[in-house]
């Protein structure tokens, strides 16, 4: 049984008891507990199930490296899956459930996989489930989906809020252990602005658990003194519960502060994401202990030696009355001594080394603990928890020498320095034979913008595994208070040596190797990696993906080095030659909420509103997003569907008068002596010859020749043009213009200004359009004075206005621009003046229908980045005389000049229906993939209320030569729609309606 000890526990407050629920069971812990510690104190050794075999899983670590003790935390709108019990601070009322079991944690049907394990080796997903094909869909996938998956996805929106903050400093120290504290003090003494981040709630790191004193001062006293010293300084900020999880370019660091994880619902943001820019980074991220690979090393009760020590010392939790230690280094002896000091039994220390003569082994012997060198664990006995171990010689093949009854096994396979942050942004690591670990390569650090080292590493993260080594390195030779920062990395002093022990016993046969877990969460064993290597996997990156080693939520913090060593051994190559996988941010998982911050709901992204937006809202407009704009799609009346509203708006505009808020239309002023010459390069047509006061439709292409934007250009005076762009294209086209002006034709005298938001623009459309303008009064808008494709400045109804006589509907139409500040008033004035003329507002969908009825193209419908103007029969808008324009050379390429291209035509369905959006025109035969051949596709398709039938435009191979031919469009249902090829102008072919 694991239980709470009567005395001790440096982090817990026994006067503050807390009740919590695990799988519905009420349990009790103390303030200062982690959930894992509290579960162990309640004898809840079984905490989850593994991913593939659903093996029973108990906690193995005591920090962010934990692969097993993952829980669903909270419920409802505060449910979070995959929370590590080892880093979850206990709070009163905490609710957690175990994961990855079905139907229950204690009894799991998936455990059958366990017995089928020999049929599910590395790569089994690839090998097993491919054939027979139908089995995948109907048998394997449903079963796997049912049984697999870590954690439950929440179904409700997150009840909490998150925020983001920015911080700047000279030195950022990540890690608040002794090395980090000393580094922070060194930088602070030098007058630098310092931020110190510590992922746990308390400072000090491992030292308070592992050491008795620092320079004769009790460790906790020493930590408290340096902490209060640092906190008293103006140039130091300390943030606990904050994990610096990623190092990026030029001193950019992201950190996740768990502000209210332990006080849910108290009104504070749950997390705060820090975006820190620092001149220099010091990582003091410590080291993570490695498991040993012996048979049954995944049985609940087998834990890292350091974790056992943490639970005993920090939380006064006993893992069991009897704990056997298995190790290849001295540090695990500290666990034996800590257990002994707590009054618990250590039946034996099994040390894989031939000799153990250091101070700690001697202390263990002096404490009366049985130390067996050259020994290892042949096998752990037990099922859902440890019942004993079988002892063998490390050098042999696993013959059992004796069996020892115990409740827990504390193992130490050495230490892996946490080099993650050093290598996130390009720092290289090197293999250290003395430590059997990767340590930062001080000669190849990540660099800053000026090429100087960006990250320094101190303490255990640099491979300095002894406190003496850390203290000596961070203080000057006099040993006094002065502290110095290393240029790049602290260096290990060689006092700690860890021999490689990758498999225990070294000659273990397959029966044992297939029970040695490397990756607990993903169920990858020593035998799987060996199999992968036999099957030809030589690269660690490939092996990782094939076996899923290190690909679980812990990202291989415990398993990567052991797996790599096993692979290297199988390949008969030294470890550094096989390499290591790349470390990428984040160091620990970061919740999406923290990354999103406040960018959710209404402020997910900026919302652009036209000056008339409020009117639209009051009038019940149904909006659609157009870029960042919200535009009225239609203005439905009571009882109307959107479709009915659109049809009413179209018919009313065609018969009487429609008003459109066209303010989102891009408006770019191009001005200067070379403005005409510049626009001649940008547009496919000629703009320099445009007379003042006239308008001309233009097309813009990219250098590949593909159509990119279109719009009407008006010449305002000799040197000034106003270019209209599509609503979504204004910023892009303005940037495009500036690109060419600044980078290619920088000697041309041209200015541009994007004035889109400076003007409100209203389209007054329909047979009564002129009457409305005359009612407003102030300008002569007659056919004679203001003919089609001309513009004029003046005053309309008292508003300063620029009136363009242009039409995107085929109706008599004026587009009127007024200053944005007067847009809402002018819109109201138009409605007032138009009331007796039958004026109604219309939205974007009516606009689309009317332009399609007239065969006008729409960027984004008729174009998709692969269409040239010639495909759309727009040759009339392309100058043949101009020597050059953007896209001219591109359009001359053979493929684009081919007569076999799909070209724009119109379609009448034989049955009058509307062709489905996105439908292809089928052709005879099938392609190499067995798919039906196609010869074209629909680009715009609507029900025309004007013609009372479906209309469509689309691209068809040799289209214009195939008038009258009947073609077939496919539908999602697998049927086809027959349609006759025709021209693209469905309504008022001669333009009589607009020329009045």
């Amino acid at each position, binding site marked *: 049984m694991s239980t709470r000890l009567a005395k001790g526990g440096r982090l817990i407050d026994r006067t503050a008891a807390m009740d919590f629920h695990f799988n519905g069971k009420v349990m009790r812990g103390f303030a200062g507990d982690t959930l894992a510690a509290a579960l162990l104190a309640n004898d809840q050794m079984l905490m989850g199930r593994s991913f593939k075999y659903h093996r029973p899983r108990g906690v193995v670590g005591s920090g962010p490296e934990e692969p097993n003790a993952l829980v669903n935390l909270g419920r409802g709108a505060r449910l979070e899956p995959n929370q590590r019990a080892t880093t979850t601070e206990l709070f009163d009322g905490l609710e957690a459930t175990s994961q990855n079991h079905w139907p229950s944690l204690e009894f799991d049907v998936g455990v059958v996989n366990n017995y089928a394990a020999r049929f599910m080796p590395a790569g089994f997903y690839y090998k097993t489930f491919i054939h027979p094909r139908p089995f995948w869909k109907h048998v394997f996938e449903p079963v796997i989906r049912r049984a697999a998956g870590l954690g439950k996805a929440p179904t409700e929106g997150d009840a909490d809020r998150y925020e983001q903050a920015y911080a700047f400093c000279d030195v950022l120290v990540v890690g608040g252990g002794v090395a980090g504290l000393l580094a922070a003090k060194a930088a602070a003494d030098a007058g630098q602005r310092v931020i110190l981040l510590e992922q746990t709630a308390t400072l000090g790191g491992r030292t308070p658990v592992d050491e008795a004193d620092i320079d004769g001062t009790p460790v906790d006293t020493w930590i408290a003194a340096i902490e209060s010293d640092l906190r008293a300084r103006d140039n130091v900020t300390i943030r606990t519960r904050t994990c610096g999880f990623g190092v*990026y*370019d*030029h001193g*950019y660091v992201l950190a996740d502060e768990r502000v209210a994880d332990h006080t849910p619902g108290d009104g504070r943001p749950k997390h705060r994401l820090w975006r820190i*820019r620092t001149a220099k980074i010091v990582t003091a991220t410590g080291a993570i202990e490695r498991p040993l690979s012996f048979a049954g090393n995944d049985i609940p009760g087998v834990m890292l030696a350091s974790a056992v020590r943490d639970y005993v010392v920090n939380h006064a939790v006993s893992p069991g009355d009897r704990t056997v230690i298995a190790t290849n280094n001295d540090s695990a002896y500290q666990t034996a001594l800590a257990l002994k000091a707590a009054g618990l039994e250590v039946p034996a220390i099994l040390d894989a080394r031939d000799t153990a003569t250091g101070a700690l082994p001697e202390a263990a012997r002096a404490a009366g603990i049985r130390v067996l060198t050259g020994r290892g664990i042949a096998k752990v006995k037990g099922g859902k928890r440890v019942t004993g171990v079988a002892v063998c010689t490390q050098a042999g093949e696993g013959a059992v020498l004796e069996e020892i009854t115990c409740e827990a096994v504390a193992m130490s396979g050495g230490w892996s320095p946490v080099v993650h942050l050093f290598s996130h*942004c*390009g720092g290289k690591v090197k293999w250290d034979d003395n430590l059997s670990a990767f340590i930062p390569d001080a000669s190849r650090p*990540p*660099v*800053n*913008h*000026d*090429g100087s080292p960006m990250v320094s590493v101190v303490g255990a993260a640099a491979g300095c595994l002894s406190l003496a080594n850390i203290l000596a390195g961070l203080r000057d030779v006099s040993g006094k208070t002065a502290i110095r920062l290393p240029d790049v990395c602290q260096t290990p002093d060689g006092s700690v040596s860890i021999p490689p022990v990758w498999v225990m016993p070294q000659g273990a046969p397959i029966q044992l190797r297939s029970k040695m877990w490397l990756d607990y969460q993903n169920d990858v064993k020593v035998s799987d990696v060996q199999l992968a290597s036999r099957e030809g996997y030589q690269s660690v990156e490939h092996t990782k993906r094939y076996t899923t080693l290190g690909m679980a939520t812990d990202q291989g913090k415990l398993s990567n080095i052991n797996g790599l060593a096993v692979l290297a051994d199988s390949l008969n190559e030294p470890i550094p030659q096989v390499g290591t996988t790349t470390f990428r941010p984040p160091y620990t998982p970061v919740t999406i909420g923290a990354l999103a911050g406040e960018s959710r709901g209404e402020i997910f992204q900026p919302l652009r509103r036209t000056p008339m937006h409020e009117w639209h809202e009051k009038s019940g407009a149904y909006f659609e997003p157009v870029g960042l704009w919200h535009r009225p799609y239609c203005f439905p009346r009571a009882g109307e569907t959107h479709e009915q509203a659109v049809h009413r708006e179209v018919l009313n505009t065609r018969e009487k008068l429609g008003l459109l808020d066209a303010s989102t239309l891009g408006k770019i002023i191009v001005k200067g002596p070379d403005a005409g010459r510049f626009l001649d390069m940008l547009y496919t047509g000629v703009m320099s010859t445009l007379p003042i006061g006239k308008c001309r439709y233009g097309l813009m292409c990219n*250098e*590949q020749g593909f159509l990119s934007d279109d719009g009407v250009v008006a010449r305002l005076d000799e040197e000034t043009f106003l270019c209209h762009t599509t609503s979504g294209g204004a910023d892009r086209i303005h*940037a495009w213009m*500036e*690109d060419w002006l*600044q*980078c*290619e034709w*920088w000697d041309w005298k041209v200015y541009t200004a994007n004035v889109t938001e400076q003007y409100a623009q209203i389209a007054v459309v329909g047979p009564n359009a002129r009457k409305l303008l005359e009612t407003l009064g102030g300008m002569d808008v007659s056919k004679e004075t203001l003919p089609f494709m001309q513009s004029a400045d003046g005053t309309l109804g008292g508003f300063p206005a620029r009136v363009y006589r242009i039409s995107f509907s085929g109706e008599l139409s004026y587009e009127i621009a007024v200053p944005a500040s007067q847009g809402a008033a002018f819109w109201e004035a138009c409605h007032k003046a138009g009331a007796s003329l039958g004026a109604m507002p219309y939205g974007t969908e009516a606009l689309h229908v009317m332009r399609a009825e007239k065969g006008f193209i729409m960027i984004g419908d008729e174009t998709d980045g692969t269409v040239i103007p010639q495909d759309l029969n727009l040759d009339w808008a392309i100058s043949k005389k101009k*020597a*050059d324009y953007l896209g*001219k*050379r*591109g359009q*001359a*390429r053979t493929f684009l000049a081919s007569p076999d291209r799909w070209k724009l035509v119109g379609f009448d369905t034989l049955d009058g229906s509307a062709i489905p959006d996105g439908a292809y025109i089928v052709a005879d035969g099938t392609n190499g993939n067995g798919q039906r051949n196609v010869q074209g596709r629909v680009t715009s398709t609507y029900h025309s209320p004007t013609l009372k039938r479906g209309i469509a435009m689309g691209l068809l191979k040799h289209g214009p030569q195939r008038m009258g031919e009947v073609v077939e469009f496919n539908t999602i249902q697998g049927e086809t729609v027959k349609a006759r090829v025709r021209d693209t102008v469905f309504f008022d072919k001669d333009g009589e309606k607009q020329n009045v």
Partner: protein
Amino acid sequence: MLILTCPYCGIKADETELSPGYEAHLKRFGPDASPEEFEAYMFARKNPKGVHFERWRHAYGCGKWFLAARCTATLEVFGTYPAQVGEPPADIIDKIKARRPDWKGYK
């Protein structure tokens, strides 16, 4: 996230203030270009691991395009300069040569 100093307004701009414009010092080829010239202009990008010249626009600042010389492998920045030049300025070339003695030159 890179920091590049805008040579126009002098601001040390975060990458989020900038929009990328890919390889710098490309020569435009127009209507008379051969297929090979046009292909090189449109598609053949260097994408080196090492010294590279790029276009950046201070999009959420002064709006100006500028050019940057930097190392794509280490992210070291050798310098930024206005876009209105045909080739990299001599002082930047000198700096790159000093930092990367085996560099083969920008062409």
